[in-house]
C-alpha cells in the first residue's frame, strides 16, 4: 500500500483522477495514508456525495415528469441548433399545453434552461426573430441566466442584442437580473460594460461573489491585468470557495506572458492566497499545479507534520504568518467589546466580576499560559464505572488539571499560569486544588458566567506568545467578531496560541503548533511555496486543510533519486514503529472537536521516528505501560535515555502491586527528578510525575490527611507537599545526579532494597497510627 501511495503522490496530478483513486482504494478497504481517520472521513464523504447526488437525481426526475415537453426530451438534451420546422412542431405542441403564445415561449426557454443548453436557446431566439415574434421578457431573462451559467461557446451578437433588448424593456433592474446580465456580458468582448452594472449593484447592496468571479475571469481572458488583480482581491474578500474558473483563466493568461513575467504573476497570485487565507479545492488546484510545473517548479502533493510543521516531501519547515502589533491590539479591543461585553455585560458576566478580573490582569499579567479549567478537567477518559460516582469523578478531574499544570511547569520552568475556573470547582478534591493554587493563579468565575471569553481576553491581554490550553474550537467567539478581517486575524492567532489536550487516559497535553495553515513561501530560500488545499474531507468551513501542495524551485530541490531513497527510508521506519498506528487509533477514537487532535493524524516520523525505533525491544518484554508511553511525543531521544526509560518502566511494573512502596519510591524520585533532572531527562521526569500523582492520591486515601504548604511556588516546596511528617526523607540524591546523569540508573537499582524496608516501615507505622486513632 505504501508503494502504491508513493506512486499516487508522484504521478497522478489531475485532481479528479487523484480523488477517484483515493476513493477506490478506500472502498477496497485499504488503509489509506497518512491517517486512517482521513480515509474514514473520505469514505463518509463519498457516501454523502452519493446520497446528495441521488436526491438531486430524484428531483430532476420529478421535474422531468411534469415537463410539458417530455416527448422532445432528447431534442433538448442535444447541443446543436434546430431547423425552423422542428421549432414549429415544438411550438405547436407547447401551445396545446399552455394558455397563450407568450407562456408557451417562456416554457420552451425554461426547458432549455433546465437542460442548460445555450446553443439550443440561442437558436430558439433566432427562430423567434425569423417568424418576427417578439420574445417575452421572462424568456430573455431566462436566456441571460443560461448565458451566465453554461460553459459552452455562444454567438456574441445574440448575447449583446438580448442584453440591449432586456435593458430597454426592464426599467428597474433588480439584483438577480443584474447578476445575470453581468454573467452574460462577461462572456463577450464588451465585458467592460459590466463595470457600470457593478457600480449599480454596489449602490443597491452587497455584491455576490459570482459577479466578481465572472468579471475576474473576463478580465484575465481579455488581458486587462490591472482590473483583473483588483477584482481578484475583491473576490477573495467575499470568502468565496469557487476558484476553478478563475484559476483556469489565470493559467491561460500566464501562457501569454514571457517567462520572467509569468513567474512574478504566479508569485503574486500565491501572495494573494496567503494574504486572504484562501484554501483552494481539488478542482482548482489541478490547473494551478500544472501552471507551477510550467513555470519550472517541482510540484508534489504532500502533508505536513502537525506539530513541527515540517513538510514530508521537501523537509522545509512552515512558519507562522505574522500578526502586526496594531492588528493584535485592535483584535483585543474588538474582542472585549463584541465578545466579552456584547453590549450587555450581564449576558456573560457581571460588572463586579469583570472589574475583579480586570484588576487581576493589571496586577499579574502577562501570563504565559491560560488554562480553561473545566474543559481540561472534563476531557479524560477513565473507566466507565468510575464516572457514575460523583466524588471520584471530581477527584479525577482535579487530578487531570493538576497533571496538565505539572506538565506545563516541567516543560517551562518559568511559566506563569492562570487557570480560569468556575465557582463549583472550589469544592473539588481539596488537596489537589490547594496544590493547584500553589502552582498557578486560579481565578474563579460564578457558575453562570461564560468562561471562554475571559480566557481568550486574558490571553489577548498577555501578548501574542501567550498560550491557551483548551480543546474548544472557539468558533462562536470568532463569529461574534462579525468583521471578516478580524475573523481572519483571530483564526491566525488561534492557530498560534491554542494548545489542546489529548482525549486519553492519563490526560496529555498536545505539543503546540509551530506554523499557521496558509500558503507561504519557504523560510530558507523564499522561492519554494507551500499551498494548503481542501481535498474534500473538510466538514465545516472553519476546519483547516491537512493536505498541502509543495512547490519547489527546481534548481534547489533534491534530485529524484535522493527523494525516493528518503521516502523508502521513511516508510520502512514507519513499518517498524507501532506507535504510528497506535496514535492514529487514539485520534480516531477521540471524536472531539479540538483543532490539534484533528490534525494529529499520527505518523509523525520526522520527529518521533527515532523514539519509536526503540520500541520493539520493549514490546518483546511485554511492557504494557510502555506501549502507552511510547505514544507520547518526545522531543529529544538518545540511546541512554531509552534504556533508562526501559528500566524505569520495568520497575514500575514490578512495584505496581505494592502501592506503599510505589509511593515512597515515587516520593524520592520526584524529589530528585523535578529538582535536578529537569533538563537532562524530560521523559524520566514525566514518569515520575505520573506515578507521583498516583502516589499522591493513594497517600491521601490511606493516611487521610497530610500537611499542605501554601505559599510561593518554588521547586523545593513542590516536592514537600508529598511528604507526610513521618514519611519525610532526606534528599541526598540530587547533587549526585546533577553531576552525572547516568548514575541515576545504577543508584536506583542499588537503593531498591533499602527503599523497600523504609517504605514498609512507614506503611506499618501509618497503619498503627490509624488504628490507634480509631481506638
Amino acid at each position, binding site marked *: 500500500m505504501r508503494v502504491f501511495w508513493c506512486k499516487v503522490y508522484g504521478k497522478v496530478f489531475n485532481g479528479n483522477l487523484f480523488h477517484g483513486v483515493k476513493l477506490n482504494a478506500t472502498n477496497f478497504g485499504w488503509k489509506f495514508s497518512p491517517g486512517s481517520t482521513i480515509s474514514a472521513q473520505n469514505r463518509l464523504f463519498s457516501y454523502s456525495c452519493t446520497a446528495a447526488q441521488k436526491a438531486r437525481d430524484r428531483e430532476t426526475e420529478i421535474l422531468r415528469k411534469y415537463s410539458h415537453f417530455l416527448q422532445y426530451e432528447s431534442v433538448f438534451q442535444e447541443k446543436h441548433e434546430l431547423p425552423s420546422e422542428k421549432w414549429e412542431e415544438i411550438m405547436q405542441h407547447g401551445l396545446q399545453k399552455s394558455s397563450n403564445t407568450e407562456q408557451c415561449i417562456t416554457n420552451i426557454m425554461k426547458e432549455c434552461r433546465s437542460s442548460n443548453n445555450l446553443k439550443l436557446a440561442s437558436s430558439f431566439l433566432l427562430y423567434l426573430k425569423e417568424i418576427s415574434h417578439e420574445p417575452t421578457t421572462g424568456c430573455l431573462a431566462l436566456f441571460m441566466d443560461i448565458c451566465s451559467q453554461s460553459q459552452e461557446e455562444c454567438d456574441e451578437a445574440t448575447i449583446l442584442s438580448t442584453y440591449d433588448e432586456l435593458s430597454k424593456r426592464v426599467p428597474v433592474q*433588480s439584483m438577480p437580473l443584474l447578476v445575470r446580465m453581468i454573467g452574460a456580458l462577461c462572456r463577450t468582448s464588451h465585458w467592460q460594460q459590466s463595470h457600470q452594472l457593478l457600480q449599480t449593484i454596489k449602490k443597491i447592496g452587497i455584491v455576490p461573489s459570482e459577479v466578481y468571479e465572472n468579471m475576474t475571469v473576463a478580465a484575465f481572458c481579455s488581458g486587462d491585468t490591472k482590473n483583473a488583480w483588483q477584482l481578484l482581491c475583491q473576490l477573495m474578500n467575499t470568502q468565496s470557495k469557487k476558484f476553478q474558473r478563475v484559476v483556469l483563466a489565470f493559467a491561460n493568461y500566464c501562457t501569454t506572458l514571457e517567462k520572467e513575467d509569468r513567474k512574478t504573476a504566479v508569485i503574486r497570485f500565491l501572495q494573494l492566497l496567503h494574504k486572504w487565507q484562501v484554501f483552494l479545492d481539488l478542482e482548482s488546484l489541478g490547473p494551478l499545479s500544472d501552471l507551477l510545473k510550467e513555470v519550472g517548479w517541482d510540484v508534489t502533493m504532500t502533508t505536513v507534520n502537525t506539530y513541527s510543521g515540517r513538510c514530508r516531501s521537501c523537509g522545509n519547515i512552515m512558519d507562522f504568518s505574522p500578526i502586526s502589533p496594531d492588528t493584535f491590539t485592535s483584535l483585543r479591543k474588538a474582542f472585549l467589546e463584541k465578545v466579552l461585553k456584547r453590549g450587555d455585560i450581564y449576558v456573560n458576566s457581571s460588572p463586579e466580576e469583570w472589574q475583579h478580573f480586570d484588576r487581576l490582569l493589571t496586577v499579574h499579567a502577562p501570563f504565559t499560559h491560560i488554562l480553561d479549567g473545566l474543559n481540561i478537567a472534563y476531557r479524560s477518559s477513565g473507566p466507565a464505572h468510575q464516572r457514575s460516582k460523583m466524588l471520584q469523578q471530581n477527584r479525577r478531574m482535579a487530578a487531570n488539571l493538576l497533571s496538565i499544570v505539572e506538565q506545563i511547569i516541567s516543560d517551562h520552568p518559568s511559566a506563569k499560569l492562570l487557570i480560569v475556573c468556575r465557582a463549583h470547582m472550589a469544592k473539588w478534591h481539596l488537596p489537589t486544588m490547594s496544590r493547584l493554587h500553589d502552582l498557578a493563579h486560579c481565578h474563579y468565575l460564578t457558575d453562570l458566567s461564560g468562561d471562554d471569553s475571559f480566557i481568550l481576553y486574558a490571553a489577548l491581554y498577555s501578548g501574542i506568545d501567550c498560550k491557551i490550553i483548551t480543546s474548544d474550537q472557539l468558533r462562536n467567539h470568532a463569529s461574534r467578531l462579525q468583521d471578516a478581517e478580524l475573523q481572519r486575524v483571530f483564526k491566525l492567532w488561534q492557530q498560534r496560541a491554542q494548545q489542546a489536550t489529548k482525549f486519553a487516559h492519563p490526560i496529555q497535553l498536545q505539543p503546540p503548533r509551530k506554523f499557521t495553515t496558509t500558503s507561504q513561501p519557504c523560510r530558507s530560500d523564499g522561492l519554494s511555496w507551500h499551498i494548503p488545499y481542501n481535498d474534500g474531507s473538510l466538514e465545516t468551513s472553519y476546519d483547516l486543510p491537512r493536505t498541502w501542495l509543495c512547490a519547489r524551485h527546481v534548481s534547489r530541490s533534491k534530485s529524484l533519486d535522493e527523494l525516493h531513497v528518503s521516502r523508502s527510508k521513511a516508510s520502512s521506519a514507519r513499518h517498524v514503529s507501532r506507535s504510528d498506528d497506535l496514535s492514529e487509533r487514539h485520534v480516531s477514537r477521540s471524536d472531539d472537536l479540538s483543532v490539534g487532535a484533528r490534525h494529529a493524524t499520527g505518523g509523525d516520523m520526522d520527529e518521533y521516528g527515532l523514539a519509536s525505533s526503540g520500541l520493539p525491544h520493549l514490546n518483546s518484554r511485554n511492557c504494557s505501560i510502555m506501549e502507552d508511553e511510547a505514544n507520547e511525543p518526545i522531543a529529544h531521544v538518545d540511546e541512554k535515555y531509552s534504556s533508562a526509560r526501559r528500566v524505569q518502566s520495568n520497575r514500575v511494573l514490578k512495584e505496581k502491586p505494592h502501592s506503599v512502596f510505589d509511593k515512597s519510591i515515587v516520593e524520592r524520585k520526584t524529589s530528585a527528578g523535578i529538582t535536578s533532572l529537569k533538563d537532562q531527562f524530560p521523559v524520566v521526569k514525566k514518569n515520575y510525575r505520573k506515578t507521583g500523582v498516583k502516589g499522591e492520591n493513594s497517600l491521601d486515601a490511606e493516611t487521610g490527611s497530610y500537611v499542605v504548604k501554601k505559599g510561593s511556588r518554588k521547586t523545593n516546596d513542590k516536592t514537600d507537599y508529598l511528604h507526610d511528617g513521618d514519611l519525610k526523607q532526606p534528599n541526598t540524591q540530587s547533587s549526585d545526579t546533577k553531576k552525572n546523569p547516568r548514575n541515576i540508573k545504577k543508584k536506583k537499582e542499588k537503593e531498591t532494597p533499602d527503599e523497600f524496608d523504609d517504605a514498609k516501615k512507614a506503611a506499618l507505622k501509618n497503619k498503627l497510627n490509624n488504628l490507634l486513632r480509631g481506638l
Partner: protein
Amino acid sequence: MKAVLRTALTRTFMRSYFDCPRAPCTAFPSTRPFSSISPANVRQLVTCYQAPRSVPSLLNARYKNSWTQSDLASTLTEEEKMTLVKAEYELYRAEEETQVPSSLTENEWEELARLPGVSRRKKYLRFLYLNEMKSINDKKKKLERRKISEAKYQQLQVELKSESAHISYGLWRNSMFIKWSDQRVNTVDSHRVVQAKLFGQPIIFDYDFDEKMVAREKKVLGTQVAECIGMNRQYLDPFYIHFCNFRREEESAQLTIKSVPTLTNEDFLVDLHPDNFLEVFPREKLVYLTPHCREEVREFDHDAVYIIGGLVDLRSDEPFTLAKAKRQRIKMQKLPLDRYLDWGTGRKSLTLNQIFGILLEAKQHGSWTKAFAKYIPPRKLLKPQYGDAEAIKKKMRQKHTSRYSVESLFKD
C-alpha cells in the same frame, strides 16, 4: 415611436432612481407584467402609480433595530427598496419559474422589503403563493361541502314531514339537554378569569426584549401569547396575567395586539403595565424562569410571582433573560426538565405556550410529570431502543424516582 418612449421611460427611471435618491418614486403597477407596459398606459403608470407617500413611520425604526443584515444597502430609502423588490417580483413573474402570488398587500410588500437576501425573498414569495393557492382550494371545498349539507338538510325536512307525530330524538330533532351557546361557554370561562383577577396567582410576561428579536420572532411571540391567553381561560384555576414593560409603540407589542385585537380593551382580563415589574410586585415574590440558570423549581410555589420572558429566540440561544434577572437581582429558576425526563434532542428553551401550559398544569395537579407529558413534544425526548437494556433500566429508575417525588408532592 414605441421603442423611443420606452428608452425615455427607462432613462427617467434610472436617473430618478440612482442619481437623486430622494426623488419621488415612480414604480410601475405591481399587477402588470413587463410585456403589458405600452405607450398607451405610460401616463397612467407615471401619474397614478406613485408609491404611497405615507410609508409607515415604524418601518424606519424597524430597520435601525433590525439584527439581520440586509443585502440591500442601508443608504437606499424605503421607497427605493420597495421599487427594487417590486422589480424582482416582476422578474420572477415574467419567468414563471419561481412561484409568486398574483398580488401582495401593502404589509406583505413591507415584509418582503425587510427580508435579507434574494433567496429569503424568494422563499417568502413562494410561501405567499402557497397560501393563496390554499385559500382558493379551501373556498372550492367549502362550496362543495355547503352543497352537500344543504342537500342533506332538504332531505331531512322531507323526512320530518313524512314522519308521524310521535316525538323523536336526535340531531335536528328533539333533545333532553339544554343547548349551551358559545356565548354562554365564553361567559363561564371569563367568570373564572375574573375570579383569578380578584384572588388568583399573578404571572408576568416580560416584554422587554423588543431589540433582541427580528420581525419574524416578534410575530411568533404574538401568536404564542395569544395561545397562552386562550389556554388560561380553560383551566379551573387560571392565572392572573400581567404584561410588564409593555410599551405600545414597540413592534413586539403591536404584533401582539394584532394577534389579540381585544387586548387593549379596558374590560379585557389581562393587565398591561408599561413599567417594570419591580414597580408592581415586591422583589421577594418574583421568580424569573430562565433555562440558563442552575436552580430548579422543585415544587410549584403558589405564592410566587413567576416571570416568563417574552422572548422568542429562533436564531440563537443567548441568555438574555438570565442577564436581565441578574441585573435586577431577581431569583431565577428553571423547570426541572432533567430531573423528570430523558432529554433527547432539541433545545431546552421551550415555547411560551408550552411553559405557560406546564405551569398551569403543575398549579392544578401538582405533578411535574403530568405537566411535562402533556406539553413537551415527545420528539424531544429519548426513546429507549428495543433491546437497549441500559436505557430501559435507566428509564425504570427514572420512573421510580419520579413517582416517588409525585407522591411526596401530594403528601404535602
